[in-house]
């Protein structure tokens, strides 16, 4: 049996193993050095690999990402941390205008093998700016690869894959999953980027989720089973590239789909998924694809958070609305 570790520890292990495997891998950001990051994800890296390999920078996100671009141009594989989702926004120009576009601008002559790690999304009772779901901005920007693990094993494997990837990766770490322990086999094969995984097979309907929304989707499927419906769950893992094949195969087999995501639903990744599935699976669908997402409001203060987050009940309600009365 593989050892149990938290997602924070799994990411720490992935960073360590990548740093040990390749001297070009360097980690930097705010408080990632002696403190080990505000979530302790980089705990001990400076101590064990030295200040040259894991270091604190001046407090400036555009600076961190901009410098990573230059370092990636010059033979390194930077893995940078944005302290919280909303604190990546000062780096938005660097990310959208340079990280995303440099390879294309240079006809592939300058690729940027860098990773931007972002503790991401809500469910932790955080104050404003500490709980944003920002994946749509990145997914909408051609040139960025966007990953969001939902399990500790994927957090390890996908981060290893991301660091080895030739192109820049935005790596979204669901904060609310940081501390629960699960088995992680670090010797397991590194999962391919761009492949979703069926977490739970189901015959009646398919829930499509990623990152922090996978656990509530699984819990809803569990509850649905009690109520007599066999609901499956697909965990995207990779938002970009998008795995049409796995997602559509599942939806075609059930004919019903609900997309679950924490971000506000308007112009969201969930909308993209619903559109793609509808275009590709229309003749297999028994009902329109539903979305269960956050409301189209700024992320609420802690006391109102529970009303915002897509929970089991809302997911089950959406499943109930999939026009079962029309079924043969």
């Amino acid at each position: 049996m593989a050892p149990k570790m938290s997602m924070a520890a799994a990411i720490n292990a992935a960073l360590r193993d990548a740093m040990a495997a390749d001297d070009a891998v360097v980690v930097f950001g705010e408080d990632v050095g002696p403190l080990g990051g505000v979530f302790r994800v980089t705990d001990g890296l400076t101590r064990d690999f030295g200040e040259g390999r894991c270091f604190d920078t001046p407090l400036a996100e555009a600076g961190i990402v901009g410098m990573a671009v230059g370092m990636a141009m010059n033979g390194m594989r930077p893995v940078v941390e944005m302290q919280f989702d909303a604190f990546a926004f000062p780096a938005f120009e660097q990310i959208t205008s340079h990280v995303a576009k440099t390879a294309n601008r240079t006809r592939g002559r300058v690729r940027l093998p860098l990773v931007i790690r972002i503790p991401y999304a809500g469910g932790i009772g955080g104050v404003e700016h500490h709980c944003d779901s920002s994946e749509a901005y990145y997914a909408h920007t051609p040139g960025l690869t966007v990953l969001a693990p939902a399990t500790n094993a994927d957090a390890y494997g996908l981060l290893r894959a991301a660091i080895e990837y030739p192109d820049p990766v935005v790596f979204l770490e669901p904060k609310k999953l940081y501390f629960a322990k699960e088995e992680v086999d670090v010797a397991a094969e590194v999962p391919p980027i761009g492949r979703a995984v069926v977490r739970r097979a189901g015959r009646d309907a398919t829930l499509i989720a990623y990152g922090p929304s996978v656990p509530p989707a699984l819990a809803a499927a569990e509850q649905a089973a009690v109520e007599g419906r066999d609901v499956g769950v697909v965990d995207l893992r990779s938002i970009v590239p998008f795995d049409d094949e796995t997602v559509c195969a599942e939806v075609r087999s059930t004919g019903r789909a609900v997309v679950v995501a924490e971000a506000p639903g308007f112009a969201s990744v969930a909308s993209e998924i619903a559109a793609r599935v509808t275009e590709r699976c229309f003749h297999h669908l028994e009902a329109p694809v539903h979305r269960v997402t956050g409301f189209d409001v700024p992320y609420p203060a802690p006391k109102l958070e529970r009303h915002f987050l897509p929970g089991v009940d809302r997911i089950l309600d959406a499943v109930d609305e999939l026009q079962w009365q029309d079924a043969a």
Partner: protein
Amino acid sequence: MRLLGHDGEPTGSAPLPAPDVLLDGYRRLVAARRLNEQAQALVRQGRLAVYPSSRGQEACQVACAAVLEERDWLFPTYRDTAAIVARGVDPVEVLTMLRGDWHCGYDPRERRTAPQATPLATQLLHAVGVGHAARLRGEDTVVMALCGDGATSEGDFHEACNFAAVFAAPVVFFVQNNKYAISVPLARQSVAPSLAAKADGYGMPGVLVDGNDLPAVTRVLAEAVARARSGDGPTLVEADTYRMDAHTNADDATRYRTEDEVTGWGERDPLTRVRTYLTGAGVLDETGEREITAASEDMAAQVRRGLAVEAPVDPDELFAHVYATPTPQLTSQRASLRAELEDEDS
């Protein structure tokens, strides 16, 4: 710049304020300290989710509010609860943010105090905007813009200083250099001779002041305010101070600084030196001290009472303020949440 030494002895570099003025300042220092301690206690009791304490920085907190007129504006950060309270905002209203009720618990217009900024240095540009608008409108408003040492590394800090200087905006940039940005020491932010020295590059005056010396901070800030008010543009003031507590209760400061360092700064406490001076000058005796303590205890009790009552939060509010007129989508989302909650109740 220093007016009172650590030992409470006047340095003589400029005259001290009149004793009754200083005594009033001391009263405010004690209240600010008590507020910091009370808020920390409320975190321990689970009444507040988090509190970024300004213990050790009270002279800065008190002074930056004291030098402003009612018509001026204050742009504080998450660290500056005590300054906001010193400005006259109800402490219970300020702290409800940290209790998790809403993002800003007070009406910014009531005391001309902007919401506490969390994204670092971003508010400095807003401060410049308020100041520039005041000039265009012919008002003599001054804007006090607060940030920490770490925030000076952000691009927005540079842009704000430059804009303010170019437009001669009536802004005082007040950097509380408390030596750390969470765990990252000042040396990792800047190798400039001082943060105040950066002012040169923008073409504005920069002043370095002992941030634990109430009369000195007050004097320097008052001069900067006067300068801004008279149309001579912005000033960058750096206060040399220290964050005595961890970054927040969620932080473990033993990971990055020594107990000795903290103790050393404890000996430069901003309250002690004013008390020593006032006592020596015969302005403060035991009765006076008791009176001041009692007043701060009253305030603390009021904060405790205010936060003991759980104010109900209204889920409808999620949708109420996003736009002046809610979009049709928000209206329907509000309806569906209401229906959901009615189901829950029944």
